[in-house]
């Protein structure tokens, strides 16, 4: 059972919390509010889908610190930053820390909701990607070391002949390996295989190891 996506609102001002909840609920989204970053951390468990609406200026743990915490704990929930007037430098820092969007108070409801929708979509996408990556990883695990080598080289854009020279085998053997790789990775085309490799961060690591 997958939970419906929830909008988590963290703001120290009660009026803000209440009004945000009121606004977001008007478009039939689920909202949970927290009066501090601490409270949020205590009740949130990773894996809950949704997005985070975060006030930058807060007593105790600030919005930026919370972002830092999430990143450190590899919680990939999309974050929308709400800033007061004139907090532009802080907003920039937030964006640099990986926030999806930032909204300046007072804000247009349409804009906010759009941003939320966008964040939720992003969340869904991120979750899909993560699932995909997991799938690719299992497939990769099935490859033999030689097949793995061949796959890295192929996705790095090397021709069969080059690979054969590089590995010291015949071109035919390379072909056979390549076919088995395509099969094991369930790739219909080279393009698909390349995408999978990118997804699994194969290219970079291999190329660096090659150096």
């Amino acid at each position, binding site marked *: 059972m997958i939970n419906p996506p929830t909008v988590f609102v963290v703001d120290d001002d009660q009026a*803000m919390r209440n009004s945000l909840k*009121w606004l977001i609920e008007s478009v039939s989204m689920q909202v949970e509010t927290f009066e501090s970053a601490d409270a949020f951390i205590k009740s949130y468990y990773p894996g809950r889908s949704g997005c985070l609406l975060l006030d930058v200026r807060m*007593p105790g743990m600030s919005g930026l610190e919370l972002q830092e915490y999430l990143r450190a704990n590899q919680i990939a929930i999309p974050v929308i930053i709400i800033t007061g*007037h004139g907090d532009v430098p802080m907003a920039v820092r937030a964006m640099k820390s990986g926030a999806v969007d930032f909204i300046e108070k007072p804000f247009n409801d349409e804009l906010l909701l759009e941003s939320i929708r966008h964040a939720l979509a992003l969340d869904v996408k991120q979750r899909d990607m993560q699932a995909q990556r997991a799938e690719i990883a299992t497939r990769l695990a099935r490859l033999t070391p030689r097949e793995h080598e061949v796959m890295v080289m192929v996705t790095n854009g090397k021709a069969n002949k080059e690979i054969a020279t590089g590995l010291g085998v015949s071109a035919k053997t390379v072909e056979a390996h390549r076919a088995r790789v395509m099969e094991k990775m369930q790739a219909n085309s080279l393009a698909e295989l390349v995408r999978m490799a990118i997804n699994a961060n194969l290219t970079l690591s291999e190329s660096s190891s090659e150096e």
Partner: protein
Amino acid sequence: MTIFKTQKWRARLVNIPLPALSLLAGILCGMVTWLLLDPVQGRHLEQVFHNELVSRLDVRAVETRRRFEEFLREWQVQGHSLSNHWQLITYLNSFSWEESAQRVRYYNETPSWLEPGHPRVSLIEPTQVVLLDTRGNAREIYQNKLLPFSVERVIELYAGRDGTEIILLNRSPYLLVWSNIAYQEETDPAVILLIIEINEHFLAESQKMAHGTDTLIGLVDSDDQRLLVSSDNEQIPRGSYLRDWRESYLLTSQAITHDQSLEQNPLFTTMVSRDVVQQTINNITKLAQLDRLFAALVYVIAFSFIIYLISAKINQVLQRISRYGQHALGIQQPVIQKGNQLLQLEDWVKRFFRQLITARDKLHDKQEKRIRETEVLKSALFDNSMVSIVTLNEQGMVVEVNGTAVKTFGYSRGMLIGRRFEEIAIKTDDRSRFSDMLGKCIKRSSSPGLCRDQLMMAVTIRGEEKAIECSVISIHLQHQTLFNVYLRDISGRMQAEREIASLAKLASENPNPVMRINDKGVIVYANDASEPLLTYWDCERGQTLPLYWRNLVASVLREGVNKVYEINIEEQIFSLQLAPISEVDYVNIYGRDFTQMRMAELQSRQHQSELVHVCRLSTMGEMSTGLAHELNQPLSAIINFASGCVRRIQSGGGGEAELLDAMAQITAQAERAGEIIKRLRALVGKRPQEREAANLNHLVLEVASFIEFEANRQKVEVSVDLSDEVLPVMVDLVQVEQVLLNLVRNAIDAMKQVAVGERRLVLLTERIDDKSVQVLVKDTGPGIPEETLEHLFDAFFSTKKSGMGMGLRISQKIMQDHQGTIEVVSVVGKGSTFHVILPSDPKLELPGF
């Protein structure tokens, strides 16, 4: 010696309280009375009682006799009853005596005709009972006891009698009772005779009914006054003479009244022992004495009590008088607390009069002293007068000169007296005028004449010429007329006048206006520099001032105190000091053109005001960011709520209650925003104003509201502790607010360096004394190091990165402007306290109070 003794006695008496004394006196009086009266009264009483007793004894004697007689009568009744007794009658009827035989029959036992035990009265039985026949011969005799004589002889002697009778036989008294026996119808009846010996028993029995045994009775032979028998034979033996007992007994002899008269009727004697009588009298007297003693005691007690009451009252009155004396009249009179009030009152009065006399003597002394002093003063006046005084007689001879004259002219007193004054001391040219003056005064000598102030030249012993002013007054004594000549050396004065004339230049050449106005408001003097003022007033020298200024001059004169006024004449500003010279009813006006100074002052003030403004703007700038953020919160909330509502209504979702709740939230947030804006306006919207009266507490409250956001943001706990009383101050509100704002913001900034829970700010107001109040701004910051403290109020000194270093400098300037101060007390590590001290007049009226 006696006086000394009396004094000693008195001193002792004074200490004894009056009630005790009165008690003593009472007892003494009672004793004296007792000693004087007791013997006299006692003797008298004894006499009275004696007489009374004797008369009572008489009565008793009669009673005793009556009882005796009654006893005799009882014997008669006994005789009658025997004669009628049935045994006797029966016996007599049984036979009759033989007439011839004169034989008497004797019985020694009780005969048959007698009932045994009869006859008797009380305990006495008859010695003989005899029956006689009708002829009077004894026939039968019952001898109860033998008689010392023959019965027949008695019958012979006393036959034919009836009733009872007392007879003497051998000097012994006997009672005979005759009674007729009616046994036959014969006229001559038989008789029964009882013979009873009257002895002491008989007498005792006769008195058995009476009480008391102190009375003895007896029968006395009326012839020789010897006792025949007595009731107590041992005490009073029979045969003794009555007169022998008069010493020890009271005797009363009475004749026995009897039916039959007898030759030998003995007297009945009553005897009462004198001892008994005396004892009774003594008893009664003692009782009376006790009575008197008791009465005396009651008298003493009552007397003492009354005196005690009176003394208590006197005591009260005395105490009251003493206190009054002490408090109201200041007389050092001790309050009488105890002791003898009367003596103390005497002392008191004595002391009072002594004090009175002392006071009178003192007064007298003082008066005398004053008179003496006056004399001395007068002579001193005469001698030390600034004026030379010479007294001349009618001939113009010097009679007396004073010290000044001696000094002025250089002649000794001896050289002057007795000579014509003008010949010695007046310049030759003026001598005739001097003589004329005297002459004029002599002509007017009928009334005290005075010729005054003639200017003459005098010559001293050294030949110097001196200008003198000469006045003469004539003094008329009883026999002569004298002249007092007063000579005033005016050479000094003339010099002074010249100097004064030169001094006048001081005013005339003064570049500032100097004027003199008299009490009518007329300009008596005005120097050249006064021209602009004269033009302004539109008057000339010698004319009166305008009415307003005339009134000012009058009021200054009245009050006698310098006053300063300002006037603006076109571009110029003058300060005019009105200085009254009350002795001559003038007012001097010293003007000063201080246009330049005022301009400079104004400029400086303006600068300061601008500086404050800049400072304020900077404060505002810093604070408005925070305020804007604050304002954003409610506005955002409002938009969110409103948008939410719109969406719900559009989509048809959302209950009415839900929507209403949201709208209520909108209202609340809008109000919140309004509140913030109000504060913002309070901070910004003020304009520099003149001084006005305000309550320092309100000012501090306002400042506290300004910094609320910032304090909240910095997590500073702010407590405001205001004085209960109103603290009125006369200040420029904006400026003083700015001072406090600066201090509070500094404090909040400083506390950024300490932990969140430790940030506490206290704003406290209190009155220091009648003239000043203060605000304390107290933080728990890190404190200010000593080297920083020294420069704290210097310009461009700042410990902050963004600071201009002007805040405290300006604050101090503002406070100086308000005659106030800022002081700081700081402990490194503990915090700092700023004291803002402002002058305050408690009587200052506040607007709106």
